[in-house]
């Protein structure tokens, strides 16, 4: 394998400064995706800046009653935190639906957002891929795409974002904070990922060299009644072929608040605002849930081998919303 530098940093300004000195550097969190990509030759960093010792490993309540999650908090610690389990159960469920115990012990929250697609063309350097090698083409459109995008894709790229955690964060209105040499910044989660367009290699709105420092969840009573459900091709150790994160507040049979995000359908966790608008103020009925799902999926443009996803997502949205509506008392929500 290629030789590369490795340096552990202990403070955020030092990390950002080091990154500024070496454009071909990468921040190393848990390494659960980056190291794989290095083995495959997709990533060839000159320097790994190990950020796991940064003081970003805390989960703390915010003044407004929300939650701030440091970027180096591990997936395992995030999923186990009582404030997350009871205040944002969909997030715990999403994290636990991903990877394995060993990987979750290594993987970090910041790294999770920046993991790359598992599209087989992206990870094989012998093949074209616009995301890896801009302008080389997207063979997935006419090739193997059974787990590719049905929403928001273009002919330049039909890959999906693999994160489970991100789907819950999209539904929960998370805000991503980062640090650059010029100071800190913030991005709403829905603005964090860029549209595919004709630049699928540009994935996030983070400024160059920026270090994700944390994620803030705003207070959201509706989130206490939330769920994440993932469907995959084996019972464990596989990425989603479709997933849903949803939160629902129902009173007197009427949907008062709703949050909905879809996974494994687009280049980013897909916030389903069209469906949310259809739901809020309407009846908490199966017909209304079906109509909301259909409204969101009306924009779907499936490829020949992934049209099953339209039916899958419709069924999943309806099933998860129905379960949430039937949940009599959100306080009884337990994490499985």
């Amino acid at each position, binding site marked *: 394998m290629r030789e590369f530098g490795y340096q552990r940093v202990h403070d955020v300004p030092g990390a950002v400064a080091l990154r500024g000195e070496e454009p071909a550097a990468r921040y190393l969190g848990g390494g659960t995706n980056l190291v794989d990509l290095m083995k495959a030759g997709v990533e060839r960093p000159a320097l790994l800046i190990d950020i796991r010792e940064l003081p970003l490993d805390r989960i703390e309540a915010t003044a407004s009653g929300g939650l701030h999650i440091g970027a180096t908090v591990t997936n395992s610690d995030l999923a186990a935190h009582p404030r997350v389990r009871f205040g944002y159960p969909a997030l715990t469920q999403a994290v636990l639906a991903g990877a394995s115990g060993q990987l979750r012990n290594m993987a970090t929250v910041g790294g999770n957002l920046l993991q790359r697609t598992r599209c087989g063309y992206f990870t094989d350097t012998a093949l074209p891929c616009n995301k890896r090698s801009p302008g080389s083409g997207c*063979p997935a459109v*006419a090739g*193997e795409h059974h787990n590719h995008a049905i929403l928001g894709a273009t002919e330049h790229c039909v890959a999906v974002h693999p994160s489970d955690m991100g789907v819950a964060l999209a539904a929960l209105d998370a805000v991503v904070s980062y640090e650059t040499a010029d100071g800190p910044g913030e991005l709403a989660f829905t603005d964090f990922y860029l549209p595919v367009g004709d630049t699928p290699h540009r994935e996030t709105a983070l400024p160059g060299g920026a270090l994700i420092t944390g994620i803030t969840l705003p207070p959201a009573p509706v989130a206490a009644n939330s769920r994440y459900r993932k469907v995959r*091709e*084996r019972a464990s150790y596989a990425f989603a072929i479709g997933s849903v994160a949803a939160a629902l507040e129902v009173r007197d049979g009427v949907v008062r608040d709703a949050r909905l995000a879809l996974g494994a359908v687009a280049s980013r966790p897909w916030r389903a605002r069209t469906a949310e608008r259809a739901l809020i103020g309407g009846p908490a009925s199966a017909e209304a849930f079906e109509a909301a799902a259909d409204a969101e999926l009306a924009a779907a443009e499936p490829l020949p*081998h992934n049209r*099953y996803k339209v039916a*899958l997502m419709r069924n999943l949205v309806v099933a998860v919303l129905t379960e949430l509506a039937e949940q009599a008392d959100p306080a009884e929500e337990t994490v499985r």
Partner: protein
Amino acid sequence: MTTTTGTPVTTGAVGTAHSRVEGRDKVTGAARYAGEIPFADLAHGWMVASTVARGRILAVEDAPVLAMPGVLAVLHHGNAPRVDAEFIGQLGQPDPVMAAFQHDRVPFVGWPVALVVAETSEQAREAAEALVVRYDTEPHDVAFYPDRPGTYLPENTPMLTAETAKGDLEAELAASAVVVDARYTTPEEHHSSMEPHAATARWEGGRLEVHDSNQGSKWVADELAALFSLDPASVRVRSEHVGGAFGSKGVRPHQVLAVMAATVLDRPVRVVLTRHQMFSVVGYRSPTVQRVRLGADADGRLRGLDHQSQSVTSTVFEFVEQSASIARILYGADAHHTVNRVVPLDVPTPTWMRAPGEAPGSFALESAMDELAEKCGMDPIALRARNEPGAGPVSGLPFSSRNLNACFQEGARRFGWADRDPRPGLRSEGRWLLGTGTAAATYPSGVAPSTAAVTAEADGTYTVRITAADVGTGARTALTQIAADALSVAAERVRVRIADSDFGPAMVAGGSTGTRSWAWAVMAAAGELREQLALGGDVPPQGITARSNTAELVGSLPPKERHSFGAQFAEVAVDVSSGEVRVRRLLGIFAAGRIVNPLTARSQLVGGMTWGLSMALHEEAIRDQMSGGHIGADLAGYHFAANADVPLIEADWVDDPVPDDPVGGIKGIGEIGIVGVAAAIANAVWHATGVRHRDLPIRPARVLLAASARPSDEQAASEDGSLA
């Protein structure tokens, strides 16, 4: 041969549970595998594979790579030692993929085009990834689909009967009250042994020594000798521990490249294949398209049986997946036709993979039998009982033993089959529809000549030497038990040494023939030794050794149909709104002769059944039509069952005596466990949902599309690119 083995006097080792004799070494890490045996002055080779599917190599630009740190050599077709691949080995002609670097032609993606050798594995890898190979690319064709042009009927060989036919099939089908005519497909599947292929070669005192991971060290040694035109006595291959093989570990490019490099550099060289490379150069199970036609009287008696299989091979070697052959054993019919056809494409050559033929063949035939039972309104087990043949359905030969009915009866009792409502789509639990299914299993119980040596040591212990292979199955332990009984001593006094080609010719660990073949040789040598010891006198310091060769004994076996049988039962839960299928339990009851070691036998059967589950629901290698290569050729992209997919699996057996058997009724059990499982699961999915799944794997996409399609709109279920 002077000894008659007969039924040995037993001390009770055979038939009782023994943990693996090398178990402690394995769990403590003391056991060394081929890729981790230390050598002084070891160099490391890294294989470079073609990225094009068809063409010629124009240039291997080795000069820049030779200047990289630690690089010792770059071997390719322009400079590699010549080898002679025109020979017939123990198991036939070799796949030319192992005769690397002999010409400039590229017949598939993944074909070996160069080996970079360096001081360290990391340096070799970095240089290999930097090596530029230029090709003159030609258009390729890797599209496998039903009845595609180029499909042909292969010639018969000693290892292949392409076609059998008796009776007037069309007339019997026309006269049948009930007919099933269905097409089934299975995808390309891979062995995926946990341990990658690895070999270290060195010249030592004029001999070529290879430490390898294989299924037959004498087999590999003889093939290397033939390839490099060496005296077979000057080649020694050892393979002490093997982390899974499943048919993929014969002579493959890694040993040949290691020998080439060791010869050129005159120092030890190790070559380890990557997981990605294993998808192209160690063989795989061909995808199949199978058409099964069954015609029966209203009472289920078969009048016509037609099983046609189509598989793929490479353009450089013919390997035929004999999926239709299982019908020659399982069921008789007035008119009976089986045929195995093949089509060459620009893909790697397939090979034997656990239950070659029977694994995909049983999915088609045993699914079709379930469809016939449905159409006849019969219980699936009763239908099979009605069609039990008294003799080989094609050969007419008597069965050495056939206890398939007993397997079904015992399985039905333990599974609770009697309470089953045969109607589909009636049971549910929350979002899950529940169903149960069953299928028959069979696999040949073959035997092949082997030699063994048994030594009575002066200290009262015994040493057995035989070129057997323990590919993780427990063969070393089973042979210890067999030798102990044959010698009438405690197993603790027997030491079994295996997997060293210097021990002489023996059958490979393959085709469920290993234990039976080796057992016979060990029993024969032990019998001979006991006769010598019976003469009295002291054992000298060098011990007393008796040798055996079972060639004549094997040749004198009367012709019979010799097979193992089994009945597989599955319970599944299906969520048709998400497409998820979960197997809730599996039960396999087998008639597999005399079970030598119940502990490891059960483990091997459960392993086979687990693979059958994986075949039913998960496994499928995706070939990209544009590049001709795989997409996702690693263990993240190629899904097999994860722990969470594997439910309670029970494997057990019924008494299966084999009268007058010279090997005491021992059969092989390596393959039988996987056979029929996928059909039992598919049949259970039908019972749960009312939908027949004739294409494997039963992925969520297929379940979803079937659920959203009209019942008559069967085309929809295959529109997710099943054979693309």
